[in-house]
């Protein structure tokens, strides 16, 4: 129904050239992903994941924030439902990214459509979305950037896993606070004004109050929903695109 094309006669492509262009543009940026990957690898070992598990998770999930988030829940018996919901909540922003970039991918045949989106993340979204506004027509651009980020993420995880295994208890290096610090910084970055902070403040209050009352992880889910609802009732001046 709303399969809108940005310009009349616009036909998205999916070629190796686009893949390489997208990859090249993200090579310098991907350096900044490295420290997070190392931190994740070390934190995963600390949380009790095996070397293989930490690596496989980075390879098949490739979403740092959610990978960090599940480490807090990583105890037997594994709370599957709250784990899945926390991952859903942490990665829900992908919905917005996918919706924003949809005009550039939705005309593609299914496997190219899938390829364009399968490694979609904040960084390659930001870069490819900008490129497409400037006339890029090749949806493989998104995958190219994604492949670079994915490779760096996996290599960095391996380095972190190695360091974690080698050095043992990493609290003396402050590795245990990396996730919380990173999330706090991300949340601050997502809040452009004081008014926009209201959902976050409510979510924090709900998370603390519900913590002793609910099973592991559920206080976070309830808090996320509460924050989302506050955002609907008191919308801040919404950005048209993320």
């Amino acid at each position, binding site marked *: 129904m*709303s399969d809108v094309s940005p310009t009349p006669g616009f036909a998205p492509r999916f070629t190796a050239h686009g893949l390489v262009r997208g990859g090249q543009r993200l090579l310098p940026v991907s350096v*900044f992903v490295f420290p*997070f990957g190392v931190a994740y690898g070390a934190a995963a070992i600390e949380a009790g994941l095996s070397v293989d*598990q930490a690596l496989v*998770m980075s390879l098949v*999930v490739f979403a740092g924030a*959610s990978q960090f988030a599940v480490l807090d829940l990583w*105890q*037997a018996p*594994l709370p599957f439902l709250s*784990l*899945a919901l*926390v991952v859903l909540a942490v*990665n*829900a922003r*992908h*919905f*917005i990214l*996918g*919706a*924003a*970039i*949809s*005009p550039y991918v939705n005309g593609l045949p299914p496997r190219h459509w899938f390829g364009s989106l*399968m490694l*979609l993340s904040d960084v390659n979204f930001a870069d490819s979305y900008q490129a497409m506004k400037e006339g890029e027509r090749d949806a493989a651009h998104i995958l190219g950037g994604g492949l670079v980020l994915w490779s760096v993420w996996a290599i960095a995880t391996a380095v972190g896993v190695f360091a974690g295994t080698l050095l043992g208890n990493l*609290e*003396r290096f*402050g590795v*245990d*606070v*990396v996730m*919380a*610090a*990173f*999330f*706090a*910084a*991300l*949340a*601050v*970055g997502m809040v452009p004004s004081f008014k*926009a902070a209201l959902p*976050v403040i*409510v*979510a924090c209050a709900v*998370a*603390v109050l519900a*913590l002793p009352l609910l099973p592991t992880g559920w*206080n976070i889910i309830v*808090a996320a929903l*509460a*924050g*989302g*609802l*506050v*955002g609907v009732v008191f*919308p*801040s001046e*919404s950005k048209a695109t993320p």
Partner: protein
Amino acid sequence: MTVDAQTAYLAIAVMALVTLSTRLGGAFVMRFVTLSPRVTSFLEAMSASVLAAIVVTFIVNNGTREALAVGIAILVMLATRSAIWAMFAAMAFAAGFTVFLT
């Protein structure tokens, strides 16, 4: 208690599927509908809220060292707008705290 390997890989598979569905879901639903401003507001507010909720839970479950480290991360983020510097500053503080104060 440690998680056995089979359960761990099952959980990783669940994570991978849920994450993939978030990557595909946005473009998929746009074939049929447009994302209403309310839904966008909900998702935007929830994205920041879930991160904040995780941080607060972490602080309550731990203590002063962790709370101060997060406070430093927030201040550095506000000053530099760089999540990397925020992360390093918090790590350095937490490391120093462990080495010198415990």
